[in-house]
């Protein structure tokens, strides 16, 4: 979504996202348009509230970056402690999922080769294997052919020799 104005104060959460959340929270309820607009603005206000409070807490702690701890304390002091448990749970869950994904891919990463490269290599290996198999099959076939030919030749010369042998005997008799 392109932002039409450069004014920071006009920053709001996209209306569509808010509409979706309202729909999920209050299904089948008709919500007036000005009420929706109001919720959008309340969101911005809430974010400002939390960030200001968290920022103050952060400054007091002499750290430069607002940490999750600061946000949680801000929620607590502003009366939104009821959100804390769920918010922490979801964060934990996200981290666990991310960790699992990292573990799975780190086995590959340990080779120092990126995934696309590995895929490419795999394809190459497959292609090579196929080729080798094809060559092997061809060789075998040739060998079979040759063997068959030799067998034929052998058979032919054997019978020829037999014939020659029998005719030679006849000749010898004649000579005597």
């Amino acid at each position, binding site marked *: 979504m392109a932002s039409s104005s450069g004014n920071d104060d006009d920053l709001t959460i996209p209306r569509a996202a808010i509409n979706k959340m309202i729909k999920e929270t*209050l299904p089948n309820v008709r919500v*007036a348009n000005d009420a929706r607009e109001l919720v959008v603005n309340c969101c911005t206000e809430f974010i400002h509230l*939390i960030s200001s409070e968290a*920022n103050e807490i952060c400054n007091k702690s002499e750290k430069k970056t607002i940490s999750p701890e600061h946000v*949680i304390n801000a929620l607590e002091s502003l009366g*939104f402690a009821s*959100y804390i448990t*769920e918010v922490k749970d979801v*964060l934990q869950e996200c981290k666990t999922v991310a960790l699992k994904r990292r573990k799975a891919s780190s086995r590959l990463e340990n080779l120092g080769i990126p995934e696309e490269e590995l895929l490419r290599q795999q394809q190459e290996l497959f292609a090579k294997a196929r080729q080798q198999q094809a060559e092997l099959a061809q060789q075998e076939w040739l060998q079979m052919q040759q063997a068959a030919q030799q067998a034929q030749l052998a058979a032919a010369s054997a019978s020829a020799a037999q014939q020659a042998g029998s005719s030679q005997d006849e000749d010898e008799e004649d000579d005597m």
Partner: protein
Amino acid sequence: MSEQSMDEKVERATNSKNVSLPMSRVKLIMKSSPDVSCINQDALFLTTKATELFVQHLALSSYTNGSGKEKNTLSYSDLANTAEETETFQFLTDILPKKILARDYLKSLEAREDEEEDN
């Protein structure tokens, strides 16, 4: 009650792998607050998630406490009333004044002028 919320938690955990609100936008809004400098990524996530919960909380509260419940609607005044009546939502009263009729406004203006004249 605790059993129900446990089920809800499990459901939500499996449904939402992430947040519905765009974190980049939330970050921009946070940075437009005066003096806010650096925000840790996890802190941003927590804030975004908290904002989501806030929307749900506000909508649900306003609807439940509001007069629109019979008609199955949620109106501007439902929200405004809830903001005024609920302590944690009172920070919103600055941006959502209860809509008042023009004539009432004029009356209050006149009343103020009278006061000043008296002084």
